[in-house]
């Protein structure tokens, strides 16, 4: 086996470990809440006045990008690393010859795959339920790219502090919702605001979701890729100095 094959095999083992081991039944049930909420937001678009596309854009702005995406990815992102650090189960992975960046990338990739199989289809289905099938591609792209960056952010938080769930919630509520709404500079590095901008660029009648100071279109997707990469690099660095104590410490 070549070094590349060995590395790939280990990476795949770690990626498939994530949905098997990091999402116990209780967390799956919690994850069902944002998934159900996405579908309800799709139905809610019918109650909003105006054209179907405008109504869905409104619902996507407040509901999908404001609640479902950040909270859904928080549930997944905390599960893939922060929860294992807290519980004391991470040493099963950490105490191996696998390089730290491989652990981080595998955890992120596993989490993103979960998002691609849960949150992204739910948001896509919301567009269909709202009666705006032409929005499906744009919402899929925006939520997929946004969830990649958000999960990377939560992986970074998980590799930095044992209280990852609290800090992640703080990042969503204070960082993204409050500061992001008030300061364009903060919104420009906030995955859910940039994901909004992606949908604003490509979605039907969604120009209102674009915001001055935040890139749009391909540049917004590029920004999300950069945010993801930077978060994963920082997470690798932080994991190297993490103190892996037990759950009771």
């Amino acid at each position, binding site marked *: 086996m070549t070094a590349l094959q060995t590395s790939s095999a*280990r990476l795949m083992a770690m990626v498939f470990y994530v949905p098997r081991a990091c*999402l116990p039944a209780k967390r799956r049930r919690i994850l069902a809440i944002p998934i159900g909420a996405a579908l309800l937001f799709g139905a809610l678009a019918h109650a909003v006045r105006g054209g179907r596309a405008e109504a869905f854009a409104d619902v996507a702005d407040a509901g999908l990008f404001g609640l479902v995406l950040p909270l859904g990815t928080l549930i997944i992102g905390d599960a893939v690393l922060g929860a294992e650090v807290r519980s004391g189960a991470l040493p099963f992975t950490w105490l*191996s010859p696998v390089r730290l960046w491989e652990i981080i990338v595998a955890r992120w990739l596993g989490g993103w795959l979960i998002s691609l199989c849960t949150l992204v289809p739910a948001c896509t289905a919301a567009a269909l339920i709202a009666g705006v099938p032409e929005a499906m591609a744009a919402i899929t792209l925006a939520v997929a790219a946004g969830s990649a960056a958000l999960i990377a952010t939560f992986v970074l938080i998980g590799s930095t502090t044992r209280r990852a769930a609290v800090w992640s919630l703080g990042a969503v509520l204070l960082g993204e919702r409050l500061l992001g709404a008030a300061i364009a500079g903060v919104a420009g590095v906030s995955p859910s605001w940039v994901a909004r901008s992606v949908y604003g660029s490509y979605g039907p009648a969604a120009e209102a979701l674009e915001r001055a100071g935040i890139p749009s279109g391909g540049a917004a997707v590029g920004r999300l890729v950069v945010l993801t990469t930077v978060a994963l690099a920082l997470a690798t660095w932080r994991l190297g100095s993490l103190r892996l104590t037990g759950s009771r*410490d």
Partner: protein
Amino acid sequence: MDRDVISDSSVVATDPAFVADATVTVGDVSVWFGQKVALSEVSCSFGPGVTGLLGPNGAGKTTLMRAVCGLLPVNQGDVRVLGADPRTDRPVHLQLGLVPEEDAVPEALTARQLVRYTARLRNIDDEAAVTGALARVDLLDAADRAVGDFSKGMRQRAKIAAALVADPTVLVLDEPLNGADPVQRVSLISLFTSLGAEGRTVIVSSHVLHEVERLASRIIVVLNGRLAAAGGHRAIRDAMADRPRRVVVRADASRRLAAHLVGLDVVTGVSVEDDTVTISTSNAGALALALPGLSIEHGCGLREVRPLDESLEAVFRELIR
């Protein structure tokens, strides 16, 4: 004590905390969490065979084991496993197995999946190795059940199988007998001693002295984050036996017994209340030998003899005085 001193053969020969053929060396290691000092300037080494790490709860055993495995960075000092720094030299983890004390296991995985996962991370793609590790801890029958449904003892065995699958040179077992029933204990003790006999470095922690005695020929005692004693279990046992302690005796003629006990050299104090005599002694072993003869000779009618302060914490406290 720095690494130069550890490698000094005269120190190794005279200090029971060190072994000549060390695979794991701990040099002047201190670890603290905020204001709390978990380990303070601990220096010792471990070599092939089973070494028991003994100490009461909170003594610093788990911190020392985590430092040896690289899970914790040390604030001061140096840890080497097979010549490498376990914190930064990740390839050495191939030779290192840990059974954490924590009950935390990925509960949704089956035992087989857990062992297979740890095997894959160590480049082992051999199902026979997975099955072999499970068989070694007698867990084959339950291998396809979720670990979350296991009893504590079965979880311990699943963790041991996960640590054994890569055939590590250094095996660190943190309270591995916790939760195991008596039959499993015998089986696991036999497993650990055989692993040591195979030439592996096996470090086993426990807060139960007789358990460690059965496991390890060499014992290192840790208390309050410091190395309190080291050596063979006989030396540790003797050190514990020689300490001053109190013994409670119930006898039919308690006052007569007390009067005669005062004349013994090893007795430093006696108090009597009803039929109970509380004896302070400088040598419990010698007192135990003398007491039956004294009782028969003077017709005192012994009914009960028990140590008053036999908690391990009390023993350890005395050890480091």
